[in-house]
């Protein structure tokens, strides 16, 4: 047997000596996470994978008005389950908040929902859960910026530069790598902040809070899981492309990153709110993808091509200008369609908070369009004919200006995504 095969066989053998027990965790809640019951259950029972210590308020069941409908909790005989008897529950949605001392001495907390005769809301909409905060708006903005660096950077390299020129390689890969790392980090922070909003726990208790109902029982959790794992694969592809100078690996990375952006569309208002359909999900994904390619492409043009590759400025600008026209058309088409779906009455634009934020976004988009139109109709023909002295430096600053407006649009988009549409 060859050495690598022998090494693999030994490693596999050492890794498979059976299974044993692990960290304390909630194994089986009854009713289950987001379970829809036909009638009132007699009790809430939480089964853990090891012995736990319970308190009288270890399980609290609340209705949608915040009224407590559970009696004192107690341990079962084997000390691995906690039971709280319930009064007769009428039809409605209910929130279970629980906390115990796990067998290893760690306090563990959690929350989930169930429904009697109705569908249970996601844990992020449980009783007492708070909506997105200003800090979450900033985190969402950082997430959009990170995504734009990844998607826009890869898109610019493949669609505009049609490869990675050696003089741009280092900075381009650094920008894309920064985008991937930030996407992963900001994604984790954003998920924990949303969980904090749902669980409403102080920081120390949040550290030991059970996030499973949010990770596995919500669109947000599914998107977080898929996007985290997906962007790890994107990072591996980009790293291998850089390590072995295989630009071809950037294609699956770009397609995967674009596909993963749909995670936001499939977990946001366009998928979950009233009036949502496959068309709104698709429109949202097109809107987001076009924005990411445009904003990220502008950043690469301004930060990589302009300062580092004078000989590529003209070609890159002209090609990006053509691509940007298509992207803006897709962005506007999808955006107008979504606005009509979400705000069926015109006066919603100034009578609702969602409409007001949308108006600010439309204003900023108008500025960006005018700026882009100047580049397209004035700068582009000049560059296409010749390269006059003085233009490139001023155009570089102008591109940075347009990038700044684009980033401001992403900030307003982050606030818009975190706002509740009317209706």
């Amino acid at each position: 047997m060859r050495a690598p095969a022998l090494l693999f066989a030994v490693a596999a053998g050492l890794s498979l000596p059976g299974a044993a027990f692990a960290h304390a965790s909630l194994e089986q809640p009854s009713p289950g996470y987001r379970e829809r019951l036909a009638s009132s259950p007699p009790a809430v029972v939480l089964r853990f994978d090891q012995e736990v210590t319970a308190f009288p308020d270890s399980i609290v069941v609340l209705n949608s008005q915040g009224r407590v409908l559970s009696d004192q909790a107690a341990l079962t005989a084997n000390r691995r389950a906690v039971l709280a008897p319930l009064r007769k529950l009428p039809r409605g949605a209910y929130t279970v908040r629980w906390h115990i001392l796990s067998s290893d001495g760690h306090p563990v907390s959690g929350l989930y929902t169930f429904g009697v005769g109705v569908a249970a809301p996601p844990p992020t909409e449980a009783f007492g859960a708070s909506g997105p905060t200003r800090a979450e708006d900033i985190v969402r903005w950082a997430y959009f910026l990170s995504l734009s660096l990844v998607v826009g950077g890869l898109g610019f390299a493949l669609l505009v530069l049609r490869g990675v020129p050696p003089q741009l390689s280092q900075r381009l890969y650094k920008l894309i790598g920064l985008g991937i790392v930030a996407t992963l980090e900001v994604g984790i922070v954003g998920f924990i902040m949303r969980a904090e909003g749902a669980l409403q726990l102080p920081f120390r208790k949040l550290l030991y809070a059970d996030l499973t109902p949010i990770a596995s029982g919500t669109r947000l959790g599914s998107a977080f899981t898929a996007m985290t794992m997906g962007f790890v694969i994107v990072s591996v592809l980009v790293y291998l492309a850089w390590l072995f100078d295989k630009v071809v690996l950037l294609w699956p990375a770009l397609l995967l990153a674009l596909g993963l952006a749909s995670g936001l569309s499939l977990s946001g208002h366009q998928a979950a709110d009233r009036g949502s359909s496959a068309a709104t999900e698709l429109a949202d994904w097109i809107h987001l993808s076009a924005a990411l390619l445009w904003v990220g492409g502008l950043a690469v043009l301004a930060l990589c091509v302009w300062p580092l590759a004078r000989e590529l400025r003209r070609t890159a600008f002209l090609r990006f200008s053509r691509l940007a026209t298509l992207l803006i058309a897709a962005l506007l088409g999808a955006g107008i369609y979504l606005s009509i779906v979400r705000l069926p009455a015109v006066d919603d634009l100034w009578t609702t908070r969602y409409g007001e934020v949308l108006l600010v976004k439309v204003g900023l988009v108008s500025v960006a369009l005018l700026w882009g139109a100047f580049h397209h109709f004035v700068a582009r023909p000049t560059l296409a004919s010749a390269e006059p002295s003085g233009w490139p430096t001023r155009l570089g600053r102008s591109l940075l200006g347009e990038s700044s407006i684009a980033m401001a649009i992403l900030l307003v988009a982050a606030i818009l995504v975190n706002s509740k549409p009317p209706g």
Partner: protein
Amino acid sequence: MQPEAEFVHWLFATGFLVLGVCLLAESVVGPDVWGRSIWRAYLWPGAMFVMGVCMWPVMILFTNSTIHMVAHSAWAQVLMLSGGAELALARGKLRSPYWHLTVGLALVVSGAASLVHEQNDWLFSRAAFVHHAMGWVMIAGAIFPIARTFRPRSFALGAGFAATLLVISVLLYSHRDVAEIFGHISPIAGTPHR
């Protein structure tokens, strides 16, 4: 689908065993002999990078507490960073020897994460002991890869680094959540499973 955590611990114990054995062999025969086959130059950095990639599903699947999620993401990132840097050095994409310091950084961060995510005392249970021991072994053992950056041909430093990884491997193999340690277990730790 969520694999048993102990199973996951043993998978990574095997990973550290592979790393330790490779580094020990490299120290014994010397980097010149070790590097005669090109695949060997990529072996332990590649294994370290793959271990980092494999740590992400662990982070995603074990969401039963925030602190575990954060700790696993820290381990995933530093393993990928140090493995990736070593691969790039072997490939010649990175040239500065200071990139070797990422391995020391990975051990320090991993050790700190192991200590921070364990809230109980050393003798609370075997899991607590393993987390404390592993944390301090990683932090103390970081001296070997850091010093090796400046003396890359030192047998003692190479062997010390390999020994650190082998000790981590043994600790991970001996990990049990509710089990005695030196005949002791806290009365509130529950019934030992083994």
